[in-house]
């Protein structure tokens, strides 16, 4: 019974995930695209929960769907969110080539998956109940992956400084504008 429930939750989350993904790409208004991406991130968080990645699901909702997307919506509101038809502009051949390239990428990934599926993908490891909870993630981050942790903090610092530098207008540009 619990098994059926997990399948139902999985189908709803996966369907929402793919549907909102298509919506992000096809929406004319960037504002609605950003809203669809919030739904996409939230349904991905549900999939993370099903994969017993509790801390990651929480971080996904807080950091991604919360902080990052609010920043996105601010910038879209600041720029006026002008409409941009998904199929407008560019040569017809270029658009066709984009679709073909994306389809080829998808087929490649699926073929690689199919080749690997028979070997050992159907036999997931048994994990303890604490797999993926904040304590274990923190333990791994501060012992085995300490260097990655520190480098991540430097990356974020550099990005914050870069964002400020890009956001401030040099004075001579303001005179010209």
């Amino acid at each position, binding site marked *: 019974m619990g098994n059926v429930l997990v399948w139902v939750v999985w189908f709803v989350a996966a369907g929402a995930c793919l549907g909102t993904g298509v919506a992000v790409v096809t929406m004319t208004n960037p504002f609605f695209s950003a809203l669809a991406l919030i739904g996409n991130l939230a349904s991905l968080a549900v999939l993370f929960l099903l994969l017993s990645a509790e801390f990651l699901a929480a971080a996904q909702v807080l950091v991604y769907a919360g902080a990052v997307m609010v920043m996105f919506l601010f*910038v879209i509101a600041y720029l006026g969110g002008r409409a941009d038809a998904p199929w407008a502009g*560019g040569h017809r051949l270029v658009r066709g080539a984009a679709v073909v390239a994306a389809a080829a990428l998808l087929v490649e990934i699926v073929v690689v998956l199919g080749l690997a599926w028979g070997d050992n993908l159907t036999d997931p490891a048994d994990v303890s109940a604490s797999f993926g909870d904040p304590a274990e993630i923190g333990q791994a981050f501060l012992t085995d992956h300490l260097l990655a942790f520190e480098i991540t903090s430097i990356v974020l610092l550099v990005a914050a400084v870069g964002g400020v530098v890009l956001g401030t207008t040099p004075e001579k540009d303001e005179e010209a504008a």
Partner: protein
Amino acid sequence: MDGPDVGWYLIVAAILFGIGALGVMLRRSPLIVLLSLEIMLNAGNLTFVAFARQQGNLDGQIFALAVMAVAAAEVAIGLGLIVAMARRRVPLDVDQASALRG
């Protein structure tokens, strides 16, 4: 493991990656290109988490968190560039931003 095998998650991640790649190549608004890029990054994250569950190894989840941090940094820089473009009256169209074409 209750519910679907890891392979099903990988299929979803593959389709999601394809959708994101299509958006990056098709759309011309840099904002939507950035949003499509987020979809691709998240498809990669889903693959990491699925394999972490399948192997019973936490390293995949650690990598997914690092990807999340890099994505946040990328959004900060990308949005800064878009705002700078808008301030300099550069049209918000990736096809027209071709000053560095070789």
